[in-house]
């Protein structure tokens, strides 16, 4: 048996042991120097310290939507049950009856001026159906479409509302923030990007012949109803069918999308037809569905070519060298031929009529046509203005047309209000605005039919009246007498 370690071995061993202890100890001591541990989380941010409700609110509400803006010090707020009345100042019963389970609220302040404040309220409901109903109930009468979530709208006061999935979201600004850089629209976009805007319908499978794009995938039935197969075998298609909604219309038509959104755009279905006998002859079909028939007409009219060749299709239509354009019901249809397509007007009509046959039309889109005088009207000047007519923020959904006789010119307009009271209220606002703009009301009279006024703003005359539920007038007319005669015709055409 081997003897125990010798003296030398003991020394070597001791030296090795000392070295090992020294190295390991030095490493350990160095590692214990104060520095933030890699996996540490500050106590206030530790998951366990935040309630599930607040975590949910944090996922819905943007933290810093724009440079200089942030949630106020109270952070995201969550209310449920009776407590929902507190931030809203209205009874919670109406909300709970509507199916609201919780309210998530975020108040955003501008660090440079904390008086400026925007508020986001996200209502959580039972499901998309309830969210949609609440959004529609909250939508103001003067709201116009806004490309956010589903059913997005923008009210006259700049507030934004939209629904998506089980949430209804409302974004508003206080008075001080009216001209702030962060607008309700921008904040609403940030908020919408955190939500999945699904609807009640389950997505349907897409047939192989179609290509889904944009928001919801189109079902085969929907696509065929809007862009039908043309009977007769002349045309192949539609192929490459895609659907776009307000959130992604820009992906198809870029900046032009804003023009459609202003007319309460709802959905666009796009597809391509190909001539069977010649593959290079293609027609792109765009079917824009707008908020109502008048808005569809308004959008169609805004893009109408002057001196266009009328086409007997839809409520109104015209042919161009490169296609066919018409409106019918709530739809505005564009058929645009490919660069090399040498197609006749009849060929475009063939497609157009197939599409038109599937569109319902209750008529009445262009209700102003029979009211605005024909005599002296400048051709193709009729237009429908959805908002801010003549730069007046209270004047929306107005038909206008220009009139000329020699050197005399004026613009007539007509708005159909909800009732006489609303028409009268608009009249009063307009009359007030004449003076606000530095003008003078020259004449104002009331009669059993309504009221009438004339004003002078810097040498140009405005004439306004209301009669029945209609409010109308002449804007910025250089010649008062000329404008008076036109107004006389307009008033005469309105039956009280």
């Amino acid at each position, binding site marked *: 048996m081997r003897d125990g370690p010798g003296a030398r071995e003991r*020394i070597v061993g001791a030296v090795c042991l000392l070295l*090992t202890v020294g190295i390991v100890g030095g*490493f350990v001591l160095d590692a214990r120097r104060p520095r933030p541990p890699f996996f540490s989380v500050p106590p206030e941010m530790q998951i366990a310290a935040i309630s599930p409700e607040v975590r949910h609110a944090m996922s819905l509400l943007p933290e810093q939507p724009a440079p200089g803006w942030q949630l106020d010090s109270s952070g995201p707020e969550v209310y449920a049950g009776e407590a929902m009345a507190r931030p809203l100042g209205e009874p919670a019963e109406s909300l709970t009856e509507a199916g609201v389970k919780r309210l998530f609220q975020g108040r955003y302040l501008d660090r440079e001026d904390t008086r400026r404040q925007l508020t986001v309220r996200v209502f959580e409901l039972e499901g998309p159906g309830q969210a949609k109903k609440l959004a529609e109930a909250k939508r103001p009468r003067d709201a116009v479409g806004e490309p956010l979530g589903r059913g997005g709208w923008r009210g006259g006061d700049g507030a934004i509302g939209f629904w998506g999935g089980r949430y209804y979201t409302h974004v508003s600004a206080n008075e001080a923030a009216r001209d702030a850089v962060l607008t309700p629209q921008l904040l609403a976009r940030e908020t919408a990007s955190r939500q999945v805007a699904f609807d009640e319908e389950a997505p349907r499978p897409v047939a192989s012949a179609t290509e889904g794009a944009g928001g919801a995938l189109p079902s085969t039935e929907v696509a065929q109803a809007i862009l039908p197969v043309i009977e007769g075998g002349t045309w192949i298609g539609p192929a490459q069918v895609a659907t776009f909604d307000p959130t992604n219309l820009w992906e198809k038509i870029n900046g*032009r999308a804003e023009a459609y959104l202003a007319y309460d755009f709802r959905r666009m279905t796009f597809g391509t037809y190909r001539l069977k006998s010649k593959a290079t002859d293609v027609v792109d079909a765009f079917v824009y569905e707008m908020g109502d028939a008048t808005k569809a007409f308004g959008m169609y009219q805004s*893009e109408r070519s002057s001196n266009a060749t009328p086409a007997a299709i839809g409520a109104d239509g015209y042919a161009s060298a*490169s296609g066919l*354009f018409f409106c019918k019901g709530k739809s505005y249809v564009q058929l645009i031929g490919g660069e090399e397509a040498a197609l006749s007007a009849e060929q475009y009509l063939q497609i157009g009529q197939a599409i038109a046959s599937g569109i319902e039309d209750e008529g009445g889109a262009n209700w102003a046509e029979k009211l605005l005088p024909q005599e002296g009207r400048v051709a193709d000047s009729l237009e429908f203005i959805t908002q801010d007519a003549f730069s007046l923020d209270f004047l929306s959904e107005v038909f206008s047309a220009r009139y000329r006789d020699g050197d005399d010119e004026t613009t007539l307009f007509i708005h159909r209000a909800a009732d006489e009271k609303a028409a009268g209220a608009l009249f009063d606002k307009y009359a007030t605005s004449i003076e606000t703009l530095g003008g003078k009301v020259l004449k104002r009279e009331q009669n059993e039919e309504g009221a009438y006024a004339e004003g002078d703003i810097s040498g140009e005359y405005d004439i306004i009246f209301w009669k029945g539920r209609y409010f109308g007038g002449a804007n910025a007319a250089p010649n008062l007498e000329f404008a008076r005669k036109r107004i006389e015709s307009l008033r005469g055409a309105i039956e009280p």
Partner: protein
Amino acid sequence: MSNQDSNPKPGVTRREMIARVSGTVAVAAGATWAAKHLYDPVGDAGLPVYPPRTLKNYFAPIFDSYGASTPRISVAHGGTDAAGEIPRETIQKMIQAALGPMGGIEKFISKGDTVLIKPNVAFDRGPRMAATTNPDVLAEMIRLCRSAGAKRIIVADNPIEKPEPCFAKSRIKHATESEGAELMLPSNALFAPVAIRDRDPRPADFEALGTWEVFHRPLELADKVIGLPPIKDHNLCFASMSIKNWYGLLCGRRNQFHQAIHNIVSDLGMMMSPTLIVVDATRVLMKNGPTGGKLEDVAIGGVSGRPAIIASVDQLASDAWCCRHLLGRDPAAGVRYLDLAETKIQGRIALGRDEAALRARLTADQVQNKSGGGRERIDAKVTQILHESKRFGIRDWQVYQREGLIKETSV
């Protein structure tokens, strides 16, 4: 044999001890060194953050040699044939006539250059709809660049829609490939964040861009950049011309900028300083832009009635000129981004006017902010600012007219 020989006494020799201790020390020292130097207390948080890229001033190489009396804008008007078409030969002559007074293409393109030509391929429309650049104009520009000795010519754009049908339907793809240039389609791998300004934008100052993802690869490769825009009505910003054409370099959710369109377009004017602008005014989309869709909305040469090509080294002045002379509109009435762009561009130009003052200011800032880097950093910053300042940018094209710096010819 003795007992000593058959049972050697165990023990460690001095040599063995030295070897063993040395080995242990070496291993321990190595382990210690490795542990100390490989230990990463911060993990991913310690990864270096690469600064976003900045764009070159593609006009800077030409600026110093660009004569004071050389036209800033040069317009060549052409005509149509009996069928109302614009022949390819006419386009060729117009381009050459436009560039001639400015020194010809050789003034701008040198032998061995990599040239990026940026047309507008925004929509899948045919050329006659005038929503995209005329492919014949593009083809002629490619030829001209090649004749000047360009080694590589890239054509690129980032349409909103799917690129393939846009490039195909607009015939831009055909023009590019038939002339032997390289078509670079957008893809994520070719995008990169670019610092348009070195801080967050201030919306109150009409700024839109700080750092944004840009279709960077062709810009990175290019020695020279030629903008080749059409002239179009635009429902949001009143007119789409050469500055607006750079929108096609942006990536990401750029639609959000539609809400503040003049802010973003003016930022683009500041961001991009091209070598040359060649405006395609063969067909002008007068109405329902930027998409168009009806031939009735298109006018050959716009309000002038004659097809034209406009070459310019000042995209701001040329946009104002084109707005007036092609669209028939007063640029002051609706094209707000021109005013904003002038402020921003002139800001950059002004910074480079007095190098000594610039250097002094940067040094004082460095001291005040206690930021490191020393003289080297200041030198780099001065170089960058001087580089960015070498450009022209005035909105009032009539200033050039009064000084005889706008030339118009007919072919």
